[in-house]
């Protein structure tokens, strides 16, 4: 029987009150996943570091407006996602994702835990991830790294639920094909 380790509740209330220990805990929990997500989108180390820092500062400034403490993670990722979009708008247009119609989707997508990668496939996986378009990569990263539910991913990326399903479906399919190509 698998052992499920429940994470302790996030000290969002304490962070709102301005307690440094609470912010230390939030930093320890989110700084690396957030950096990984941002880096995989922007593909530039310094930019990713800047965006993570800016996102945490913005979160500290606006945490009084956060209504649901348990949504801190998706709220923080949403701030970072918006910052990435701002950077792209200044630099170059965002790639347009090829979204499938909702009717083409099946609710049979495996969860992130079902996708296991062998040691020799790790490089190929990262390379294939980098070859996806930005919207597909964003949806897949949020699903894989933080295991956000689809509704949360839709909220973070500012898209409809159907679009998120479509992007995840397409991203998984593309990733599988790229991995198979690399293996062959």
């Amino acid at each position, binding site marked *: 029987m698998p052992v499920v380790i429940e994470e302790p509740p996030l000290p969002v209330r304490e*962070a*709102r*009150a*301005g*307690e*440094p*220990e*609470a*912010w*230390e805990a939030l*930093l320890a929990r989110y*700084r*690396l*996943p957030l*950096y*990984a997500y941002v*880096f*995989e989108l922007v593909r530039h*180390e310094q930019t*990713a*570091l800047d965006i*993570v*820092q800016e996102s*945490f*500062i913005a*979160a*500290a*400034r*606006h*945490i*009084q407006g956060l209504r649901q403490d348990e949504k801190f993670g998706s709220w923080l990722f949403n701030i970072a996602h918006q910052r990435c979009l701002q950077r792209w708008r200044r630099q170059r247009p965002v790639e347009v994702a090829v979204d499938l119609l909702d009717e083409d989707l099946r609710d049979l997508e495996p969860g*992130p*835990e079902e*996708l*296991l*990668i*062998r*040691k020799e496939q*790790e490089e190929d*996986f*990262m390379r294939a*991830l980098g070859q996806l378009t930005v919207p597909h990569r964003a949806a897949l*990263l949020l699903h*894989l*790294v933080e*295991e956000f539910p689809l509704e949360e991913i839709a909220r973070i990326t500012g898209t409809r639920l159907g679009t998120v399903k479509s992007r995840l479906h397409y991203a998984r399919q593309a990733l599988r094909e790229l991995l198979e190509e690399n293996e062959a």
Partner: protein
Amino acid sequence: MKTPREIILERHQSAEAKLKAIRAEELAACARSAAAETRFEPQATLSLGAIAGQIWQEIFWPWRRVWAGVVAAWVIILGLGIAAGDTPRRASARPPRPNPEVLAVLHQQEQLLSQLLGTERPPRIAHPRAPGPRSGAEPLPGNPREASRQEIALCENPVAAAWITTI
């Protein structure tokens, strides 16, 4: 075998040292100042002094040089006006009396007009009234058909109508 999460986080583990530059103390200070601002906002009252201060800060102070220029211009204009000493007199409320010669000419033209129209005195144009009920309509004096014909002629002749209204 690893999960994608493990692979991705491991790949970026090296950035952890740089990410530690983000100080929790600074974030906590940010949150505290934001909380203090939020607490302060509802207590803000609209006192007269505060409004005057805000107007001064937002309207006058940023444009102080422009306002100073406007004031200086008005001072110069007033100074020149006082120096010239020709303060304008108020025009009398009563209109000037008409010249008797003009009145005589107008009287002659009135007579001429009445002769042209075939009446002793030109009829005054009645102010248009809202049509009332037919039963309450008053009959015109004399021959009603003739009187209405004259009124129509007057209305169609703008020169005559203008003269009559002038008189």
